[in-house]
């Protein structure tokens, strides 16, 4: 990066520290954090400039997990790309699938039958629960609370079982196709899902019992990694991180896709934008997801699962489309350009983890190294999606 751009960036972000890796203060030194550090949640490398325990500057280095997914998309027919989207954010495969197939449907102009839409929303909200559970488990264990880890994984297992019964895989679901759903809910799935929904709110209370009023937890999270709403908007941060800063923006409400306009739910907001508030927002999101799931199960219509479509999906020439949905981590969107062939001409992914990660230097400056771990946890990044 040239100096001009760098200083321009710093002005924009009102960043008091310049990303200059050659100038050190008297007591400052450089420290590499990761890429094999267990609490970087993957292969994230951070170049820290520290002054004792205090972080002066942080420079994330990414790309260790780059697999060229966007390029791969240009080689395969539309339906063959769905398994590749599973592997970007591998703890939230259903929402990735939905963002991709939604973009393809928009590009080609397919209307999904209502039953398929409901099944998609069911899967996505279950995925939101499972992703937030994994986040809570790892975030808590990073900060030092061991117990929530076990409890969260216990419930996550039930969600993964539901996925497995529906589509045959637990993580890399591959559960949607452009135009609809490949298979119907298996016999007894709705009852199993209802059982889970009956039991789950009590379990959320249990996690909250462990953490919400815990003095140690509060001390470790309140006032740590404060993200002001202006900075959040400037970085383009989305998802629970944005809402914890007090900005009411949720794509499920702002631009309803699938059947989100037919279910009743609230978008939880907080105002401080620190780690504790992000925790509260995500906990409340799990409760709201339970509500959405219950309504979906009640309203589930009968009917077809696949839209009428050509055997080979061809994109219109010169067609381009962007379709974003609200994933567990933020807005995940696909930008696809078609050129009359059955394969995308170009595909770009707006990955929420990648964009949320950019705010990390802002969040960690002037914090202790121990807090850095809490802040990485609270951004809820998945490196598979950051690097793609």
């Amino acid at each position, binding site marked *: 990066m040239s100096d001009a751009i760098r200083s321009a960036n710093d002005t*924009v972000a*009102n960043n008091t520290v310049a990303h200059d890796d050659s100038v050190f203060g008297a007591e400052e030194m450089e420290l590499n954090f990761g890429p094999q550090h267990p609490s970087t949640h993957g292969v994230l490398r951070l170049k820290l400039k520290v002054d004792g325990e205090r972080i002066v500057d942080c420079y994330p280095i990414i790309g260790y997990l780059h697999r060229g997914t966007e390029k791969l998309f240009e080689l*395969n027919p539309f*339906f*063959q*790309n*769905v*398994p*590749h989207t599973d*592997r970007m954010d591998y703890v939230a495969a259903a929402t990735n699938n939905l963002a991709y197939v939604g973009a393809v449907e928009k590009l080609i102009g397919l209307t999904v039958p209502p039953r398929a839409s409901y099944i998609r929303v069911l899967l996505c909200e279950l995925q939101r629960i499972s992703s937030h559970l994994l986040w809570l488990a790892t975030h808590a264990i990073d900060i030092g609370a061991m*117990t929530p880890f076990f409890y969260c994984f*216990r419930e996550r*297992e039930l969600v993964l079982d539901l996925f*497995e*019964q*529906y*589509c*045959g*895989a637990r993580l*890399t679901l*591959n559960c949607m196709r452009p135009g609809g759903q*490949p*298979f119907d809910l*298996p*016999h007894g799935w709705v009852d199993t899902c209802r059982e889970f929904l009956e039991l789950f709110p009590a379990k959320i209370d*249990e996690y909250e*019992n*462990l*953490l*919400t*009023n*815990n*003095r*140690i937890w*509060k*001390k470790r999270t*309140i*006032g740590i990694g*404060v993200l*002001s*709403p*202006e900075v959040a*908007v*400037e970085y383009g941060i989305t998802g629970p991180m944005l809402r914890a800063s*007090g*900005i*009411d923006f949720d794509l499920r409400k702002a631009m309803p896709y699938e059947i989100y306009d037919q279910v009743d739910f609230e978008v939880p907001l907080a*105002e*401080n*934008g*620190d780690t504790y508030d992000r925790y509260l927002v995500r906990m409340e999101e799990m409760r709201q997801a339970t509500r959405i799931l219950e309504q979906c199960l009640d309203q589930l219509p009968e009917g077809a699962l696949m839209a009428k479509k050509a055997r080979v999906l061809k994109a219109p020439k010169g067609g381009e489309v962007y379709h974003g949905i609200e994933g567990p981590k933020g807005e995940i969107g696909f930008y696809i350009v078609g050129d009359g062939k059955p394969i995308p001409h170009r595909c770009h992914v707006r990955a929420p983890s990648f964009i949320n990660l950019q705010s990390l230097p802002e969040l960690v400056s002037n914090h202790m190294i121990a807090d850095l771990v809490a802040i990485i946890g609270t951004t809820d990044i998945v490196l598979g999606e950051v690097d793609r």
Partner: protein
Amino acid sequence: MRSEMLRDPVLSRPRPRAVTPYKKSLAEWLYLPLFGGLMVTLRHFVRNLIKGPRYTIEYPEKRRDYSHRFRGHHILTSRPDGSLRCVACFLCATACPADCIKIESGEHPDVNIEKYPVVYEIDMLRCVFCGYCVDACPEEAIIMSNNYDMAYFHRDQSKVGKNDLMKPYTFDPSQLGYRPHYPEEDAQRAKMRREAFNLVQAAREAGATEVAS
């Protein structure tokens, strides 16, 4: 840029600059919520000691019971005479996003069948277990089992050939996974339909003129 954003009605609302500082309530000062948390763990401890449910599985001895849609190791199905059902049409290899199916076709002695695969190899380390090969096959010649432990000493062992794909799981229906048709599910649906039909029938016979639909 910043000033433009601040003109935005949502963003220009007054909001706290600094975070509300953490003030301990009396209960927190006495560590009471911590004891609430400890009670949760204690309750779990006692309950797990006395009775289940246990959430863990002692893996190699006990195995998880996967559903009949699980996408595991592939199976090549066979005809009643024991020959492969596959007609080497290459549809599965074309549909495979990981490009891991290798087929070489040969001429079948029966003219109605035309072709059969001389070589049929799936590279299990490349396979992403998406199930597209199963969806693509017109002959139901390839299905999946719910066997998930695939470990190899060498990379060449991961290329599983025709014989190994046919052999072990074909005969145990409880080990089948993802496949186009689920007889037990279809049977269940048929049973439900039959029961509903019987109910209607019984109501009719009991003299009810209208049956609530």
